[in-house]
C-alpha cells in the first residue's frame, strides 16, 4: 500500500490543527472527541488493521459474503415479523394479502427467500474452499467446528422458515420435518410431540416453529458467528497453501522418475523454505504458525474484494426477489389427494436418498446425514498432517471429493422432480 494514502485510522495530531470550516473538519473533530471518551480510534484500528494473505484473496471473500447475506436475512426477517401472523388461520392470509397490496413487503419477502437460497449456496462454497485449503488444520480446528455448528443452524433456519407460509408446500414440509425427531431412539415420539404440540402438525406446531425460527436459531446463530469471527481473528486468516513456501508443501521424498529423466516443467519446484515470523499474528512457537509470504491489509484491500463479492450476492438476491419473488401456493388443507410435494432444492440429496431407499431401509437413509455430520466433525482430528496443498492430501481430498460428487449426483438425479418432469 502506498504510504501517502490517507487512512481512516490515521491519527489527528490535535483538534486545533483542524479548522471547523468544512464538514470534513467538523467530522474529524467529532471523531477526536469521541475517541478521547471511548477509545474508538484504537478499536477501529484493531478492527481494520490486519494482515491477510495476498494470493487467492478472492476465495477468502466467501466468508464475508456469507455474513452479509445473513445480515440481509436478519433485516428482511425483522420486516417480515411486522406483517406475518404466525397462525394457521391467518398466516397464509397475511402473506397472501401482500400480493397486490404491498409492493414493499412482496420484495422483502422475495429477498428473504432468495437470500436464504443464495446464502446456502455461498455457504457451501465457503465450506468447500476451507476444506480444500486445509484451513481446518491446527490451530484452526475450532474455526471449523464452529463453522459446522453454523452450517447446521443455517440449515435449521431454512427448513423452519419453509414451514411458516403454511401453504401446501409448507404444510407438507412441516409434517415431514417434524416427524424426523421421532426416529430418535427411545425419546423420539416425545420430541415430536414437543415440537408439534400434539400428535399432529397444527396451530401449535406453527407457533413453535415460528419461535424457533425467529428467536432460538438466530440467537444461536449470532452467538456462533461471534465465536467464529473471534477465532478467525485469533489465528488470522490462513488462506491457502499458495501463500506459503516449502513448509506446507511436500517436497517429494521419493520422486517416481529419477531427476535426470524428468522433462522440465515450466515452473521448478520451489526450494523448501520456512517462514514463521510475525507480523502475522499468533504465537510463533510452533511450525504450524507459519506466516504467509505476502500479505495485504484487511482494509482497504480485502474489504474492497469482500464488498464486491457481497454486493454481487445482494444484487442477485434483489434481482430474484423482485423478478421472481416468493411463491405462495394454495392454503394448506389436510385433505388434498392431488398434491405432490416438491422438495426444497437444498434437501434434494437427502430427498433423493429417501426416494431411492426401499421402505424397509428409510430409517437407515436418515442416518446418512447424521453420519455426514459426524465426518465433518471428526475431519480436523483425522486429517492432521501438516500438508495443506490439496493435491498432496489425496486420501482426504479424494474421499471428500467423492462425497461431494455423490451429493451432486443425487441432486442431479432428483432434480427432475423439482420441475415435475
Amino acid at each position, binding site marked *: 500500500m502506498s504510504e501517502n494514502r490517507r487512512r481512516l485510522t490515521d491519527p489527528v495530531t490535535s483538534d486545533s490543527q483542524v479548522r471547523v470550516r468544512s464538514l470534513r473538519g467538523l467530522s474529524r473533530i467529532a471523531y477526536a472527541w469521541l475517541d478521547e471518551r471511548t477509545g474508538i480510534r484504537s478499536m477501529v484500528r484493531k478492527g481494520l488493521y490486519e494482515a491477510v494473505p495476498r494470493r487467492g484473496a478472492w476465495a477468502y471473500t466467501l466468508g464475508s459474503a456469507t455474513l452479509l447475506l445473513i445480515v440481509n436475512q436478519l433485516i428482511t426477517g425483522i420486516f417480515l415479523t411486522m406483517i406475518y401472523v404466525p397462525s394457521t388461520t391467518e398466516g397464509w392470509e397475511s402473506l397472501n394479502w401482500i400480493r397486490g397490496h404491498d409492493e414493499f413487503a412482496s420484495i422483502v419477502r422475495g429477498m428473504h427467500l432468495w437470500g436464504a437460497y443464495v446464502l446456502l449456496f455461498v455457504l457451501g462454497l465457503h465450506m468447500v474452499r476451507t476444506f480444500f485449503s486445509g484451513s481446518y488444520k491446527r490451530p484452526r480446528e475450532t474455526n471449523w467446528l464452529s463453522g459446522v455448528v453454523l452450517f447446521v443452524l443455517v440449515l435449521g433456519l431454512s427448513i423452519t422458515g419453509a414451514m411458516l407460509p403454511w401453504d401446501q408446500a409448507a404444510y407438507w414440509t412441516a409434517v415431514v420435518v417434524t416427524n424426523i425427531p421421532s426416529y430418535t431412539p427411545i425419546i423420539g415420539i416425545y420430541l415430536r410431540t414437543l415440537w408439534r404440540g400434539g400428535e399432529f402438525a397444527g396451530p401449535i406446531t406453527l407457533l413453535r416453529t415460528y419461535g424457533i425460527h425467529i428467536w432460538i436459531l438466530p440467537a444461536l446463530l449470532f452467538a456462533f458467528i461471534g465465536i467464529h469471527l473471534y477465532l478467525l481473528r485469533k489465528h488470522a486468516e490462513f488462506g491457502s497453501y499458495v501463500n506459503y513456501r516449502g513448509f506446507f508443501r511436500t517436497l517429494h521424498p521419493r520422486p517416481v*522418475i529419477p531427476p535426470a529423466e524428468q*522433462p522440465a516443467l515450466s515452473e521448478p519446484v520451489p526450494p523448501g523454505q520456512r517462514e514463521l515470523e510475525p507480523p502475522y499474528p499468533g504465537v510463533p512457537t510452533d511450525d504450524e504458525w507459519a506466516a504467509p509470504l505476502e500479505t495485504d491489509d484487511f482494509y482497504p484491500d480485502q474489504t474492497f474484494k469482500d464488498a464486491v463479492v457481497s454486493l454481487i450476492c445482494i444484487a442477485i438476491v434483489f434481482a430474484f426477489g423482485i423478478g421472481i419473488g416468493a411463491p405462495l401456493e394454495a392454503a394448506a388443507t389436510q385433505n388434498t389427494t392431488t398434491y405432490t410435494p416438491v422438495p426444497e432444492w437444498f434437501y434434494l440429496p437427502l430427498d433423493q436418498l429417501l426416494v*431411492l431407499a*426401499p421402505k424397509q431401509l428409510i430409517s437407515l437413509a436418515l442416518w446418512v446425514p447424521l453420519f455426514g455430520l459426524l465426518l465433518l466433525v471428526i475431519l480436523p482430528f483425522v486429517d492432521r498432517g501438516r500438508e495443506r496443498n490439496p*493435491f*498432496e492430501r489425496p486420501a482426504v481430498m479424494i*474421499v471428500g471429493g467423492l462425497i461431494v460428487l455423490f451429493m451432486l449426483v443425487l441432486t442431479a438425479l432428483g432434480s*427432475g422432480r423439482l420441475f415435475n*418432469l
Partner: protein
Amino acid sequence: MVDLAIQLPPHSPEFGGLLGQRIAIGSSFEAHILIAGLVSGASQLGPITEWVGYMRRRPEYDRLAHGIARFLVYYFSIGAAIAILVITALLTGLWGSVWAIINRVGFWPFFIEAWTFFLMVVGSYLWYYTWDLLRDYKGLHMAFGGLLAVASFVQVMMIDVIASYMLTPSQPNNPLRVFLNPTEYPLQIHRTVANLAYMGFAVAAFAGFRYLRSKDAAKRAFFDWAGSYGMIWGIGMTLMQPIVGYSYAKEIQLHAYGAWYKMMQGTLSSEFLGQIFLLGLMFLAGSYYFWRRLHASNAPNQGLLGLLTVLLAVTTVFATLPAHLAFTYNQVLASGKDRPFWEGGWVNPFAAMIPYKVGALIAYSVFAIAGLYWYLRGQREVVWGTARAVEQWVLIASVFMVAAMIVLMGFIRENSRYPDVIAGQVQLSHQQVLSQQLISPVTGLSGTLPPPP
C-alpha cells in the same frame, strides 16, 4: 420417368433372419462400446491427469497423460470406424425404416453428436501434437485438453439421449422432452463414471503389463506408479456405481416396468446376478491389489486392507446367491416350489433384493471407500518399482472384468426391451410394415412423430 421401385432390390439383405441381424448389430455395437468407452474415458482422464501433474509439479503425470493422448489419437479412428460400419451399413441397411424413425425423433441429438466428432478430432490432435511445442504455455495446452474433455462429455450425452429414449420414451415431438426423458441423466452419469473407471482400469492393466516386461529401474518405477494410479481411478469411480446404477434401475422400474421386471425377475435375472458378481469381483480385485501393493513396500494399513479384502470376498459370495433355483421365478411357481429351501422349496430368502442385495451393494461401496482411504494414506510409504508380479496380474485381470461387465450390461439393456426398439412404441417387426409403407402409421407413434426437419 423410370419407376425406381422396379429396379430396386426387392428387400434388404436377409442376414440369416432376425436373429442373424440382431447378432450382427449387437456384436458390432458391443465392439464399438468397448473401444468408444475407452476413448471417452481417455478424453477426460487424460486432461485431468495432465492438470493434476501440473498442479503437483510432478512429471510422471505429464508422461502418463502424454501416453493417454497417444492412445487416443490412435484408437479414436477405430472406434469411429466401427460406429460408421454399424450405422451406415448395418442399421441403415438392415433396419432402415425403424432407424429412420429413431433418426426423426432424435434429429437434434444426432446433429449435435456429429459436431462433437469434429470437436473431438480437433481437440485430440491439437492436444497431442502441441505437447512439446506448448510446454512453456501449459495453460493453453491444458485448455485444449479441456475442450477435448467437454466434447467427449457432450458426445456421450447425445448418444445417451438416444439410448435412454429407446428404453423410456417421452413425447417424441417435443425435443426438450426427448432430451430430458426419465433415464437420460441417470444413464449419462452412469456412463461417464463408467468410462472413467474403465479407462482407469485400462491404464492399470497396461501399466501392469509393461511393468512385468521392463527391466529398467526407472521404467519399472513409472509403470508401478501408473498401475496404482489407474487402479485408484478405477475403484474410485466404480464405487459410485452401486448408487448410480440403483437410481438408474429405479427410474427404469418407474418408467419401463416390463424391462425392469425382465432384468430383475424374468429371463435376464441371471445375467443381472452375473453383474452383481462381477462388480464384487472388481472391488475385490482392487482391495486385494491395494493390500498386496502396500505389503510389498511394507507400508502402513496393510492389515486393514487385508481385512477389507476378506470382507469383500464374503460380501461378493453373499451378493451372488441366487434367489431361487430355477431360471425364472415363473418356473418356480410352475413347479410348486414356492417355499424357502429349508422347507424343501426352491426359494432362497437371503437373496431377496431388499434388504440383502441392496445391503450388499451398500457394503461394496462402503468397503471400497474405506479401502481407498487407507490405501491412499499408506501409499506415502510405498517405494515405486518394488511391486511384485501378483499385483500386476491383478491389474491386468481387472480390465477384463470391466470389459466383461460392459458387454454384459449392453446385452442386458438392449435385451430388456426386446422385441421393442423404442419401448412400447416401435418394434423390430415393424420393419417389414414400415419399409412397405415408407414410414406411416405405427402403433402408438403415428400422430406424435415430429415433422421431418
